[in-house]
Structures are given as C-alpha cells and as structure tokens.
C-alpha cells in the first residue's frame, strides 16, 4: 500500500487543481441555472467538496496535518449548514408549497 | 498637561451633564466648567513662551506602527484661538440663561463637547488627530441645530452636516495622501506632512491644494460654497449660531493657515490668486446681498460671510501684516459676531420676531441695549478703536502690499458694510416705535453680564491690540518661512 501512495504522491498537484476547478465550476453553474432549492443546495455541497479535496491535496503536498483538520471543520460547518438550510427549505415549502428560489423574491415585500 | 486638561475638562463635564436633569443646575455647572476652562486658558496665556515653536506639548503614542500619535501643543495662533474659544463659550452659555430649553442638560453638554472638540482642533499637532477633532466638532453642533433649531431645522441641519462632511472627506483624503508620501516609517504629524509637500509633483500639489481648500472653503464658508450658511445661521438656536459663526468658522481659516499656506512656490502663486478672487467675489457679493435682507440673523449671516471672504483673501496675500490681520480678525470677528447674534437673540426673545420691517424705535425703549448694539455694530463695521478696525486695517494693508487693486476692491466692503449695518440699526432701533417693540425692556442684569464684557473686549482689543498681535508673530514667521 505504501508504495502505491508514494507513487501517487508524485501525481502533479496541477492535476488536482484542474480537477477541483472543474468540479467547482460545475457547482457554480448548478447554483446559477437551477431554480430548485434542493438542487442548489446539492451544487453548493459540490463546491464545498471540490474545495475540500483541494485542501486535502495540498495538505498532503505540503505534508501538513492542519489542512486535513481544516477539511474536517469544513465538513462540520457544511453539515450544520445543511441542517439549517434544509429546515429553512421545509418551512418555505410549508408556506409556499414550492421550493422555487425565484419565489423567494417575495421576501423583499 | 495644560493642553490636555483644556480638552478633558469640558469633555468630562459634558459627559456628566448628559446624565443630569434640570435647567438651573446644569446651567450653573456648565458655566462653572467654562469659567474653569477660561482660567486654565489664561494660565496658558500668561505662561506662553514666544521663543518656543510649540508650547505645552503633549505626546502620547496611539498607533505607533502607523505613525499616529495623540500629539497636542500650541503655537501663537493656536493659543489665540483657544483663548477665543475659552472666552466666548462662557458668554454663549450665559446668553442662554433666560431661555427655557427643552433637555437643558443635554444642550449644555453638547456645547461643552463642542468646546472640547474646538480646542482639540486648534491644538492638534497630528494630522489625523486634527481630522478626528474636526469631525467631532461637527456632531454636537449638528444636534444643537437639529434639536433646538427653528423652522425646517432637520432639513437645513442635515444639509449643513452633509455639506461640511463632504468637504472634510476631501481633507481626509488629502491628509492620507500626504501621509503615504512621508518617508518610511510614515508619520501623521502635521510637521511631517507639511515637509512632504514640496517634494511632490506640481500636479499632486495642485490636487492636494484643491482638496484642502475645498474642505476649508466649505467650512468658512467661501464663495460659492456658502449656501448652507444663511439658512443654518437663521435656523440654529442663538447659542448655536454663536458657536458656528463665532468659533467654528475659524476652524476653516485656521486650516488654511496650517495646511494650505505651506504649499510653497508655484502652487501657491498659481492657485492662490484663484482663492483670492473667490474670496473677493464672496466679500462683495455677500455685502451686497446683505443690504436687502429682511431678517436680522440672515443679514448677520451674510455679513459674516463677507467678513470671512476678506480674511481668506488676506491669508493668501502672504504678507506679515495680512496674516497678523487675519489672525486678529478671527478673534475680533468671533467677539463681534457673538455680540451681534446676542443682539438678535434678545430682539427675538422680546418681540418674537426678527423681521426687520416689524421692528423699530427700540432705542427709545431700551437705551442700554441700543448702546450695546451700537458698539457691536461699530466693531463689525471696523470703526477705529474697535477691534474690527485693527484686523481690517492690517488685512487691507497686507492686501495692498500684494496688490493695490485687490485692496481697493476689498475696501469697497468697508463702505458696503457700513451701508447694511447702519441700515439694520436704523430700521430696528430708530424711527417710530412699532407694535412689536412697544414693550421692549432694557437689558436685564444677566444680559448685562454678557453685554458689558463683550463691549469691553471690543474696545480693549481695539485700543490695545499689541499683546495679541505679538503672540502671533513667531507663528507667522513660521508660516512665512515655509513660503519663502
């Protein structure tokens, strides 16, 4: 196993950067084009994950545990965020019978 | 130590007053505090050493990494203006004694806070600190005008506030710009900032010059940035008008002397005349408008506007006499305008009107008041042996040294000043007694406490100006050193 890992460590960091960027942008596009709040949440998770992965990659690259700790904290926050977010969603749905983001416009009125 | 106590004393009393209630007690506390302040200022005055560049210095590091320190001190100009503040504030407070105010304690607290801020402005030796006090002074006067003012107060006060605020933002920008140009580590000390100016490119200097002048021009105010002034003076409570015209306006001129005149050489000689021309336009323009004003305070406002124009013009004449005149005129204008606003206040309180057409024949009813008004007016029209003359004479001499034509134009204001002031006096004091002024009572003893010292100040400053003029001399030398 160790050898595999050693080999993998030679994987250029650039690849990770490129991969995570693509994943991130897909998340962004998802947020932008969808009206379904649930899917938007998913896209956000996608973005978070892409960043997490990049942090983890750099953590290994720099040989520093802090990066991975950070990932854990991000996960913590993400979980909390999802819990609160979804409850908002439920409340919204109860009020409007919809989870269309565009309807949230009414908040301003 | 002396300087900081001058700021702290009113500030602390002000904070205390905010928690107080009741008219009488707060009045007396405020008056006592200002008298104590005056005593300290007098100590500073007597102990002043002309040979030192900065007297009573105080230096506390504040943000040492940013080169920003709590640095106070006085040169001659500062001292004179501090004296002006310390002398006038007791009168301003005393002048409100007969007046029922809502929230009296807060009112006096704000006046004292104003005093602290003004002293701070005049004694700051640090650019940023100067700005802090500069803005701090705006807050109390905003509330004084906004809460105790007359008709339309909110709108007018807001305009005044935003207008001057915009001006001071330009100043802040200029200060920061200068700061970034100081040699590392950057310093905010006024001296450091001023030393940078000559090293800048002409374009930079021009922009900085414009920014500073704009800030001070709005404060003073200088033509054409004056339109907040007549409204504000009219709507502000009398004490507010006195603070504004008597002391606060001097901040603008003080700023000119401190920050603008040290622009040496080309910048000053290229753009200085622009300011002089604006000032002269304002001088004549304000005087002419004042002639037909129908409301006393508005008339006084325009007259003050005109006087300030002369001071600004003289400041840019850059001769020793002109600068001495400007400094002296700051003091005498402060005294005179407070006296005039006090007159307006008394008239308003007695007759409930300040419309000139409704007044008349007051001199018959109230001879002592007539004398007081007359002397205040004479000071304002610069009759010899009153304080106004010394300042105007020196300023005009200085302007004449700069250019005879400028002096001639500026001199027209002497004629116009006589026209509108005498016209005002004649219509309010002389003639047949009008219904509004029928039951006009003469000055009460409290009012005499304000009027008599003011009269004495007007005359004594006119007869023996020497000590005041001499105190300012080293500071003027300092300014001229920057220039030549």
């Amino acid at each position: 196993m160790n050898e595999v890992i050693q080999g993998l460590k030679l994987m250029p960091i650039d690849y990770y950067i490129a991969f995570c960027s693509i994943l991130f942008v897909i998340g962004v596009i998802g947020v932008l084009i969808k009206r379904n709040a649930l899917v938007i949440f998913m896209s956000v998770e996608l973005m978070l994950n892409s960043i997490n992965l990049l942090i983890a990659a750099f953590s290994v690259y720099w040989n520093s545990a802090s990066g991975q700790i950070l990932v854990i904290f991000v996960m913590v926050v993400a979980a909390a965020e999802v819990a609160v977010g979804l409850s908002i969603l439920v409340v919204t749905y109860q009020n409007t019978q919809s989870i269309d983001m565009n309807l949230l416009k009414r908040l301003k009125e | 130590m002396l300087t900081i106590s001058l700021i702290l004393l009113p500030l602390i009393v002000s904070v205390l007053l905010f928690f107080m209630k009741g008219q009488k007690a707060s009045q007396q506390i405020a008056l006592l505090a200002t008298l104590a302040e005056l005593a300290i200022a007098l100590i500073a005055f007597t102990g002043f050493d002309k040979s030192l560049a900065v007297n009573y210095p105080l230096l506390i590091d504040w943000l040492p990494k940013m080169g920003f320190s709590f640095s106070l001190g006085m040169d001659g100009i500062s001292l004179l203006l501090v004296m002006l503040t310390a002398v006038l504030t007791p009168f301003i407070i005393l002048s409100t004694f007969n007046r029922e105010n809502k929230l009296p304690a807060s009112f006096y607290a704000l006046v004292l806070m104003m005093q602290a801020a003004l002293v701070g402005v005049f004694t700051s030796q640090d650019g940023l600190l100067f700005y802090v006090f500069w803005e701090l002074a705006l807050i109390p006067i905003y509330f004084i005008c906004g809460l105790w003012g007359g008709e339309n107060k909110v709108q007018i006060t807001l305009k005044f506030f935003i207008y001057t605020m915009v001006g001071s933002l330009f100043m802040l920008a200029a200060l920061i710009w200068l700061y970034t140009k100081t040699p590392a580590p950057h310093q905010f000390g006024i001296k450091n900032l001023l030393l940078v100016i000559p090293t800048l490119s002409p374009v930079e200097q021009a922009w900085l010059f414009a920014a500073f002048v704009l800030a001070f021009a709005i404060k003073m105010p200088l033509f054409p940035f004056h339109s907040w002034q007549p409204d504000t003076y009219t709507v502000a409570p009398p004490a507010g008008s006195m603070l504004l015209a008597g002391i606060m306006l001097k901040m603008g001129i003080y700023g000119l002397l401190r920050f603008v005149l040290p622009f040496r050489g080309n910048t000053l000689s290229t753009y200085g005349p622009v300011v002089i021309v604006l000032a002269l336009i304002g001088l004549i323009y304000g005087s002419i408008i004042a002639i037909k004003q129908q409301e006393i305070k508005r008339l006084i406002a325009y007259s003050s506007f005109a006087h300030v124009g002369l001071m600004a013009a003289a400041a840019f004449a850059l001769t020793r006499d002109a600068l001495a005149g400007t400094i002296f005129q700051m003091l005498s204008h402060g005294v005179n305008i407070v006296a005039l606003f006090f007159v307006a206040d008394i008239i308003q309180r007695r007759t409930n009107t300040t419309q000139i057409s409704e007044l008349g024949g007051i001199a018959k009813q109230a001879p002592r008041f007539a004398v007081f008004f007359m002397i205040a007016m004479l000071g304002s029209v610069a009759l010899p042996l009153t304080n106004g003359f010394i300042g105007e004479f020196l300023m005009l001499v200085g302007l004449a040294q700069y250019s005879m034509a400028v002096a001639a134009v500026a001199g027209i204001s002497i004629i116009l000043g006589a026209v509108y002031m005498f016209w005002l006096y004649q219509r309010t004091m002389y003639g047949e007694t009008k219904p509004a002024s029928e039951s006009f009572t003469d000055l009460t003893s409290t009012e005499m406490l304000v009027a008599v010292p003011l009269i004495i100040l007007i005359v004594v400053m006119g007869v023996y100006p020497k000590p005041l003029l001499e105190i300012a001399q080293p500071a003027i030398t300092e300014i001229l050193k920057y220039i030549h």
Partner: protein
Amino acid sequence: MEKYIFFGLSGLAIFSAIMVLVSNKPIHNLLYLILCFMAIAGHYLLLNAQFLAVVHIIVYAGAIMVLFLFTLMMLNLNLKLELNKSLMARIVAFVSGLLLLVTLVIILNGLVIPTPKTATTQIGMTRDLGQVLFSEYMVPFEAASILFLSAMVGAVMMVNKNK
C-alpha cells in the same frame, strides 16, 4: 497505474457532477451526487487521507445525503416537475460559469507552487490526525460542537415554529 486510478476517479466525479445538473428528477440528482462523493472519497484514499475518506463517506453519503433524501421524501418533491430557468438565464449562467473557469485556470496556471519538502509521514492516518486535532485544535473542535448544537436547535426551532 496511479494515473489511471486518478483519471478514472476524476472522470467519474465530473461525469456524475454533470449528471447532477442535467437530470431532472431530484432523486436522480441525489443519487448522482452520492456517486460523485464516492469518487471524491476515492481521491482521499488515493491521497492516503484515510481518515478523511471515511469521515467523508459517513458525513456526506451517510448523514447529509440522507438528510436530503429525507427532505425529498417528506416533501414528496420527486413528483414535481423540475423547475427550470428560462433558456436565456441558463445560457447566461453557463457562460458566467465558464468565464469563471477560464479565469481560474489562467490564474492557477500562473501560480508557481514551490516544490514540497520530501516527506513520507503518515499524516492522513487516524492516529496522527487525532493527535493534532486534540492537541493543537482542541478549542476549535469544542467550538464546532457548540456550532452543531446551535444548528440543531435552530433547525428544530424553525420547523417547529409554524406548528
């Protein structure tokens, strides 16, 4: 060998991510997302971040996705038609996204990343991470638990309010 694993996992992740966007049924979206997360977990493994990989699976696939699924089921959203934005809006969104990608790529390309120190330590191992977490990051860790608590309370409060 590693390359192939890397590219395979990456391809799988990107494909499933795209499918999240493309498919119209929320339940499908969700399943594709889980697939994507699995692929990312694989990446963690590849980085020898074993602890992270496990936590990732538990937290995301196990907890978060279940939460999503639960919401989905509870609101019975699956039957709803997918709400789509107008074509114009979608194009605009897509173009902005691409623009972002392009700029990101240009910028990141320009980055000069110093070569790392040679190291073979097992930082991704549970033991090592645990040591760091409970020594250096003790306080944030405890704070995180408070965060959780408050999130939980908040969520309950919100849903409860209307009843």
